């Protein structure tokens, strides 16, 4: 399948909007939170590798950016062997920063979701083991949020 045909096919998927090609091998789209899980299940056969999940604090709302990578050449860019990527954006309200977990679809997403929970405080519904990964247990707050206030330790001499 060519990347342009793939974009055509995507436009009929539920919950998908703003499909665009940001590089010759990258398709970018926006996704609604409710339809996200069905959409991710439908692309699993083409995109077998979940590269990255990044959480962004856009103040006031959160944004999740998913990067998937196609390794089996089922989607191609013209006649080159360039690997196609998919970039999906999901916007979350600050009051309820939760989204369906994809850790059961791509195992590689497991720790990316734990990291987003740890540092940004996004809740992934259905995640098998959602706990902190980089910060110690019992740490208060989510330091990559823009409104996180640092404790200032004044040294006593």
């Amino acid at each position, binding site marked *: 399948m060519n990347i342009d045909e793939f974009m055509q096919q995507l436009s009929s998927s539920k919950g998908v909007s703003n499909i665009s090609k940001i590089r010759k*091998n990258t398709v970018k789209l926006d996704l609604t939170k409710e339809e996200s899980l069905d959409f991710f299940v439908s692309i699993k056969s083409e995109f077998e590798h979940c*590269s990255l999940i990044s959480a962004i604090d856009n103040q006031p709302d959160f944004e999740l950016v998913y*990067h998937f990578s196609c390794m089996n050449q089922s989607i191609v860019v013209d006649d080159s062997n*360039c690997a196609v990527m998919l*970039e999906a954006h999901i916007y979350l309200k600050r009051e309820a920063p939760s989204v369906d977990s994809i850790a059961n679809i791509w*195992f*590689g997403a497991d720790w990316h979701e734990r990291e987003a929970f740890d540092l940004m405080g996004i809740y992934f519904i259905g995640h098998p083991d959602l706990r902190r990964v980089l910060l110690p247990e019992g740490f208060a707050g989510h330091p990559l949020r823009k409104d996180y206030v640092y404790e200032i330790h004044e040294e006593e001499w």
Partner: protein
Amino acid sequence: MAEMWISMGPQHPMTHGLWTLKVKVDGETIVDADPELGYLHRSVEKMGERRKYFMNTTLTDRLCYASSTTWTHCYTHTVEELMEVEVPVRAQYIRTIMLELQRLASHLMWAGAYMPDLGHITGALYFWRDRELFLNLLELPSGSRLLYNFIRIGGVKRDLPNGFEEKTERILKLFEQRLDEYSDLFENSKIFRMRTDDVGKFTAEQAKNFGITGPNLRGCGTKFDLRKHDTYEIYEEIDWDISTREAGPGYSDCFSRYMVRIDEMKESVRIIRDCFKKMPAGATLASRIPVRAHGEAFRRTEDSRGEAMMYVVGDGSDRPYRWKIKSPMFTTMSACPHYLKGYKLADIPAIMGSIDICIGETDK
């Protein structure tokens, strides 16, 4: 016998960094495992948000001490995409040479660390002796041995010094002879094969689902290398091949993962030679390098350990608004309960060593 949990680390010699592997054992057989990270967390992403774009190259150098140039390159490459900077062709060639020298040094560092894991101390000395040669080469243009800060946004810090090509060629020739010696020493050694053959197996399908990339995936026979499949710098114009190995149809073991790295080193030697042949004269730094950036960009590169990726969001100021680092080892380690299960406790150093762990990049 009752099952019990054992903590390996954070001070265990197997860990190669600072992390804990909790293993649940039934007698000597591993039933379950739970890797724990965070001992080395420095919050590089948050620090980066408070520094200007060009300042962050010193932070990215410190992501992985064994492979610092590749990380700095991944960062500058992303920021160049964000700022739409054109890198001069000569600078791209110099970058490629530096990246491949770094890959050689990193793989040698790994091989040197892997041998003592298997009880082969002499192997460590041999491989580290050779790594020293490449560190000397990397030192010539950049002036330092581990943290180079040589690749800058828009190009490289300075041109290669006089006589660099001859010195490199001399060392590459010596290195090729040594690689032949090592194949006698290790590949044909019965003890080495007993520790690595059919240990730590996973299939290519599993590896992709686990998020395992790089040499560990190519060790399953999958021909996937971002230098060819999402090409950057001048890898397109260079004459080289992707090296793959497999232990059996579609799966890897410790030995195939060892061999794929040895093959990659031979390919790196080829790339460096070809770069010197094709390198044009010219500038080494772009004439226009902006300070501010707006928008978002991501790029992925083939790090020594797999798919390195950065995602940078700029809000129009001179500092990144959000900077996300994808480390290949982060996901590879998360899957370790799957590929440890069923093996003996004594196999853990052999398996975890063979995937080439670097905690600096994993903990960020």
